């Protein structure tokens, strides 16, 4: 079925978590009945604060798990472990995470060249009894750090690091440099320094503290996955007690992402091990932990991937239970809980949809409030569920929201196919054909552009370069007040619909901003430290670009395949439509031109007392989005069985 369903099921963001009081569950293992969806109304929006009456959908006991297509792991290396150089060339490190080496000698770097560099700050040694001059220099640098003179502290630390006389204090100096860079907002550069300290081994003096800094960095960067590689590398380290749960959660995420990547390359056995590992780690997190909900969600995803739906359901329900809104949470925690709760609702809906329990699926989709991050996807996916139970008016109404100008650029190509199928089902062949034409007009050029890109067989990094180029062009066009190239824009949006690629792209942009921001530290200009930081960041950027390139390539290829399938489905609908039209024309001829294809629906614009009726006149009001119901007005006089075949074929996720 939906293009987005498959990737999303497992590709869901693994973060975050809020909810309703007294949560009830519907569906596979619940005796409770879902609430009835309200009857179809005129092509209108109904603003409602209303609850809906209940219905009598069967509450079957267990989910036929096999019917659910687990999300294919489309994101190859989102957070794959940092590879060895050779593996980095391949882009994916699908080997087991290597434990940290017991001790790794770090070669002393050569002293920085003196020529052509700006004078650096030095500290006069003080003659203090009991302290060496070297120690005094380090303490002076620390004093600068404590005073908030970050530039000065960074330069001093850098100088100490590369002073051969200061070899015994080199590690401490590097630690100070890492901290200072963090305070300067150079998080990626700081990560580089702490990584080097960690690489020296567990017995290193600052090993444990550097591990803690990793967490702080992950909280500041746009994408916490930048530290996943490091987390995985030191999986056997003795993590500080207070970060243990976070560490286990991050490590579980690491294994989960790795499992998905392995699934993508068809290494199912290895992938299963990774998912198992992710599950084990998730289960080590106690309910009292703030990472518990996210861990259970992750666990649920692994069960889903393995096709064990009852287990997946239980995990998701537990997420919903523990993320009930509570005043005891900090705003940040409440936000995470709220997001995780929505993700769990989406997953519950998808599991029921996969089990063909469409009304339960709708119940859970309905739990996503308007305006939440998952809302659009919930609308789109619930359109399919509505279609399946014959609620065409609601299905088309949901698609109206998706076609609002604000969301028009969101990538839901399948929405047009669904629309065409519904019109076809209702014998409105002319409209169905027109919609398919619109689909082809809009997406055939995108398919061609994807075809061009994937045929070039470029290096992975070049794929990302193409996307980066599109982004730059679009930004330049926006600055110049011009419209961006629509096709390229669609290709970009499509690529960035992969959440891991989007995150990596954001990390690259963040890195580039960090590179740029060094200019805001004039005292560092032209220093060896600046050069070192530039080199460090460029190296990190190259690694991220390589990773992003692989993801982009896989994503573009996958989307090309899916578009090909959708275009094929479109052709099939066109063919079926033409056949049906011909049949009806023949019947009309035989009946002397009196036979009608369609019949008038009876409809009413009456709404409940707590709702208001507004006709849709082409304008989208924010508070109406998601409440539209379409007036189909006409349906088939005779429903042919042939119609069903087309609709089923167009809904691959319903398999």
């Amino acid at each position, binding site marked *: 079925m939906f293009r987005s369903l498959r990737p999303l099921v497992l590709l869901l963001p693994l973060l975050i978590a809020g909810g309703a009081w007294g949560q009830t569950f519907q569906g596979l293992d619940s005796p409770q009945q879902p609430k009835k969806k309200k009857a179809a109304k005129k092509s209108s929006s109904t603003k409602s604060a209303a609850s809906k009456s209940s219905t009598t959908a069967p509450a079957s006991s267990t989910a036929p798990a096999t019917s659910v297509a687990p999300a294919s792991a489309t994101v190859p290396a989102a957070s794959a472990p940092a590879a060895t150089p050779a593996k980095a060339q391949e882009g994916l490190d699908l080997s087991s995470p290597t434990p940290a080496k017991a001790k790794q000698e770090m070669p002393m770097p050569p002293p920085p060249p003196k020529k052509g560099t700006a004078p650096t700050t030095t500290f006069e040694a*003080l*003659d*203090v*009894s009991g*302290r060496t001059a070297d120690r005094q220099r380090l*303490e002076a640098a*620390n*004093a600068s*750090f*404590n005073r908030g003179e970050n530039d000065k502290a960074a330069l001093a630390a850098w100088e100490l690091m590369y002073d051969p006389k200061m070899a015994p204090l080199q590690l401490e100096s590097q630690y100070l440099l890492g*901290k200072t860079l*963090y*305070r300067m907002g150079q998080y990626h550069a700081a990560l580089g320094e702490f990584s080097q300290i960690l690489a020296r081994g567990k017995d290193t003096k600052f090993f444990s*503290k550097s591990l*803690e*800094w990793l*967490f*702080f960095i992950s*909280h*500041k*960067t*746009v*994408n916490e996955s930048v530290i996943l590689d490091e987390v995985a590398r030191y999986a056997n380290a003795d993590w500080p007690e207070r970060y243990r749960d976070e560490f286990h959660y991050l490590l579980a995420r690491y294994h989960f992402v790795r499992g998905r990547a392995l699934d993508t390359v068809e290494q199912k056995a290895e992938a299963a091990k990774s998912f198992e590992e992710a599950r084990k780690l998730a289960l080590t997190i106690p309910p009292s932990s703030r990472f518990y909900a996210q861990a259970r969600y992750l666990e649920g995803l692994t069960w889903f991937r393995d096709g064990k739906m009852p287990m997946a359901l239980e995990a998701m329900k537990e997420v919903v239970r523990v993320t009930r809104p509570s005043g005891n949470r*900090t705003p*940040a925690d409440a936000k*995470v809980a709220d997001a995780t709760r929505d993700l769990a609702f989406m997953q519950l809906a998808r599991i029921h949809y996969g089990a063909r329990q469409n009304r339960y699926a709708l119940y859970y989709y309905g739990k996503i409030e*308007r*305006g*939440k*991050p998952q*809302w*659009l996807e919930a609308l789109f996916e619930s359109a399919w569920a509505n279609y399946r139970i014959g609620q065409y008016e609601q299905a088309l109404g949901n698609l109206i929201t998706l076609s*609002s*100008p*604000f969301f028009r650029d969101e990538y839901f190509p399948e929405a047009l196919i669904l629309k065409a199928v519904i019109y076809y089902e209702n014998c409105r062949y002319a409209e169905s054909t027109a919609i398919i034409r619109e689909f082809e007009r809009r997406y055939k050029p995108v398919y061609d552009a994807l075809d061009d890109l994937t045929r070039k067989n470029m290096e992975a990094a070049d794929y990302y370069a193409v996307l980066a180029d599109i982004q730059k062009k679009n930004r330049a066009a926006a600055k110049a007040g011009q419209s961006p190239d629509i096709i390229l824009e669609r290709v970009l949006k499509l690529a960035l619909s992969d959440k891991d690629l989007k995150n990596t792209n954001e990390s690259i942009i963040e890195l580039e901003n960090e590179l740029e921001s060094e200019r805001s530290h004039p005292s560092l200009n032209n220093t060896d430290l600046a050069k070192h930081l530039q080199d460090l960041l460029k190296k990190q950027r190259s690694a991220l670009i390589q990773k992003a390139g692989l993801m982009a390539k896989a994503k573009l290829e996958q989307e090309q395949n899916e578009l090909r399938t959708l275009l094929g489905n479109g052709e099939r609908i066109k063919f079926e439509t033409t056949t049906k039209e011909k049949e009806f024309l023949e019947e009309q001829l035989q009946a002397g031109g009196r036979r009608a294809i369609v019949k008038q629906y009876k409809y009413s614009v009456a709404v409940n007392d707590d709702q*208001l*009726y*507004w*006709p849709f*006149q*082409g*304008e*989208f*009001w*924010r508070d109406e*989005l998601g409440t539209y119901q379409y007036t189909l007005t006409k349906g088939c006089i005779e429903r042919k069985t042939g119609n069903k075949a087309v609709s089923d074929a167009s809904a691959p996720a319903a398999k």
Partner: protein
Amino acid sequence: MNARLVVLVALALAPVARAQDLTPSTEAGDTAAVDRDIGPLKDRVPPVTGYTFLMARRFEIAPTFSLSFRDAFWTKYVVGATATYHFTETLGLALRGGFAFTSVSGAAQICPAGEACRSPTKEELDGKGPGQIKLITALDFEWAPLYGKISLLAEGFAHFNLYLIAGPAAIQYKAPKDANVPGSDSAWAVGGEAGLGMRFIFNRWMALRFELRDVIYREKTVGATETTGASYQVRNQLFFDIGLSFFFPNSFTEG
């Protein structure tokens, strides 16, 4: 001396030494997760998209008909037109002009000595009753902060916008002649006007507009003499306007 310096330096460095023992969590400061998204979707969605009607960078031409009210002496029926250019969706500049036909107000009474009070004739009132406006022109700045739709008994639905206007006005009126001289002369007065209006939108290029305006100007009144100079009073003239607006170009694109 040296010993004292050493002690002082040692004391000064003591906090530094302690500072090095701080935990990373202390040194890292606020480590709360940054807001990684650009705000809730519901706040990013504009209140209205896919407008059925927009005014920015469009001309509006509206033939109008105005009726004065709360008139003590003269009721005015003004036939005119308004031309507006809308710079943005909310700001515009309008030039309006209208020719007024006057009739004696129902409120006007004349009570000749020994006779019952009655409504005066036009000739009797000419030059004596203030507010005998002939022409009105104005340059109005328009601010339209509200755009909405209303449901009339859940049967009729209309889009509207609400706007405020204010600007200078020039009024030609019939002023009294010098004292004891019957009849009137045309005179011009400079004033200003302010008002509130609503447009009810029919389609992408036509709307029905209603306005309430207060035209404020200084008018020469009876009792003015050549020797003592004119006597003036400030008048507030209220108008209710109705107009049919046509917008050019007759289509628009949402920016």
